[in-house]
């Protein structure tokens, strides 16, 4: 187990900066997820922690020790790759043994460790198969096994589930969570899938364009997104955004947009006339008598819930209901945000406004 400190990390390839002034403390035994769209620099960060890439600037510390110039093999990290990166010409057993062999672990001990790992991951029957003959899910298990077998201080995961189908992905997600509970090791996990980030992490670091936008627990990131980007990236279906302005109403500040007045009291500290974007999660938008008039344009039922798309002025918003309650396309429905669930972001900077 180790604590990892990223201290003002910058990474550039020529004039192109991929990671900018990034500082994160990963606690011992924590499961930290780096979440962001492709190209946000998250994989580069992981590779720098592994030692496969070097930062242009800044320090990487393991338990307070600077490891910038330490070879990947000596950092005591294990990594699981998106492509699994199993050695295709070796059997599963040889793949699992490889990191042990390179560290001079004697043969008898190697066999014991392989059996232990194979038992945990239930890959015993596959040991003598060539890794190229395995299915995606089996390869994923072997890749996990190869990471576990040498009992590293840190586990690094680079989008390990993105090549699996939906059912298997959910299954392996649970498997990795159990692995974290069982081993209690520091784990850094890279993904663009917010469901993975929400379900697995102790904390999530949301990144975009090489910059850290928010670092917090899944609940914090979901309930109080720091920027409009984070708000839109985390949560399905996506948060509704309505551009408008904060103006002085009869009873304090109100949000007004393009012919609509969202007569919701917002914190009076928000300056009047400021251009903002209001964000409402689909489940926080409720049908209400006397609410904003929305015309239903689409109904999507998944059986357990109904997504109702409604035109609100020139905006389309999505509402998540348990039950359509007889709503039909073309109906007009009154919409109101759930009290206290309105998020406001600055129209220019995208930063959160208010508490």
């Amino acid at each position, binding site marked *: 187990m180790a604590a990892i400190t990223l201290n003002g990390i910058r990474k550039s390839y020529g004039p192109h900066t991929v990671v900018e002034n990034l500082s994160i403390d990963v606690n011992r035994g924590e499961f930290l997820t780096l979440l962001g769209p492709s190209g946000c620099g998250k994989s580069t960060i992981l*590779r720098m922690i*592994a*030692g*496969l890439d070097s930062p242009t600037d800044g320090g990487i510390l393991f338990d307070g020790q600077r490891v910038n110039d330490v*070879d*990947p*093999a000596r950092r005591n*990290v*294990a*990594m699981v*790759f*998106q*492509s699994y*990166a*199993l*050695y*295709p*010409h070796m059997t599963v057993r040889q793949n699992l043994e*490889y*990191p042990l062999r*390179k*560290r001079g672990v004697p043969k008898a001990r190697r066999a014991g460790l392989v059996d232990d790992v194979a038992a945990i991951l239930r890959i015993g029957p596959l040991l003598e198969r*060539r890794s190229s*003959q395995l299915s995606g899910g089996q390869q994923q298990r072997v890749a996990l096994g*190869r990471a576990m077998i040498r009992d590293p201080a840190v586990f690094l995961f680079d989008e390990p589930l993105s090549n699996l189908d939906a059912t298997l992905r959910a299954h392996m997600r649970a498997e990795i969570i159990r692995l974290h509970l069982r081993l209690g090791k520091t784990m850094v996990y890279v993904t663009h899938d917010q469901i993975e980030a929400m379900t697995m992490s102790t904390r999530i670091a949301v990144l975009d364009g090489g910059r850290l936008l928010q670092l917090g627990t899944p609940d914090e990131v979901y309930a109080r997104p720091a920027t409009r980007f984070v708000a839109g990236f985390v949560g399905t279906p996506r948060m509704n955004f309505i551009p408008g302005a904060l103006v002085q109403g009869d009873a304090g500040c109100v949000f007004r947009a393009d012919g609509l007045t969202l007569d919701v009291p917002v914190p009076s500290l928000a300056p009047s006339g400021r251009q903002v974007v209001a964000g409402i999660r689909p489940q926080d938008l409720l049908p209400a008598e006397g609410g904003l008039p929305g015309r239903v344009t689409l109904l999507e039922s998944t059986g357990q819930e109904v997504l109702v798309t409604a035109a609100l002025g020139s905006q389309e918003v999505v509402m998540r209901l348990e039950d359509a309650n007889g709503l039909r396309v073309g109906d007009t429905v009154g919409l109101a945000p759930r009290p206290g669930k309105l998020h406001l972001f600055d129209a220019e900077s995208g930063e959160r406004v208010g508490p």
Partner: protein
Amino acid sequence: MPALAAPMAGRRRGGWSLAARNAAFGYVLMLPSILFFLVLIAYPLLQTFWISLHRMSTLTRQGEFVGLANYRALLESADFWGAFGQSLVWTVCCLALQMGLGIGFALVLNARLTFRPAARALVLFPYLLSTVVAVLVWQWLFNDMYGYLNYLIEEYGLSDGPVNWLGQSPNAMISTILVAGWKHFPFVTIAVLARLQGIPPALYDAARIDGASAWSRFWDITLPQLRPVLAMVIILRTIWDFKEFDLIFMMTGGGPRSSTETLPLLIYKEVFPKLSMGSGAAIAMVMLVIMVAFFWVYAGQYDREERARSR
């Protein structure tokens, strides 16, 4: 609702089933290849074998049937065994040199180099050069009177006198092997480089994290990944080196005193200067048998290993 168009029930063209028609079409497509094979490979092969059973003059192409006499004479001829030995030395040394240089250059060119595109184009150069031009250039370099190599050797005092590169044994064989190595290694480089670029970089990342040194990574990842392409390259280069004629013929003509005379040169000597077409054909048949035997053993070995690995 309009009625669905009735299927053309039971209407078989010419009474043939679909499968039979597809098969017939397949045979028609194969016909040109079969024809080419018969005319260009099978016929000359059988004819060569037929000629090898005759005592035949190259000029008249007339002669008597002598059965296996040409083969018997071969096995008793010192020339044949000499050429056989030289062919072996030639093929093995050329192959080793070409593989070594070829893989080495491929690894260098696969690295991130500033001048990689230019270097890749340049490395092909010897292979693209016509053999005549290459041989003329090298003969000039090797010339014992005014050659550039001897000039360098004297300039740096590496030897007491000029080296007789081509006029002395075993120098002539060594020099010719060097030229063949230089001329043909780019083929190996191109084939190996293509494969190297197909090896997923993540394998090397994984190996680095697993604690593999640069040497281990080459040995444990690169080489196993290259195996199939190396097997193919070895087969092709062995065949081509074994039957190399023009380069040796122009370089040394088989000399000095037959010391670079390989089997293809011996065939030429039998058929043209000696006008003995029958015995030339017999050597050609022996060469064919040797190549087929090599192919058999090597391909079988590779197959067995592959099957053992995939089990």
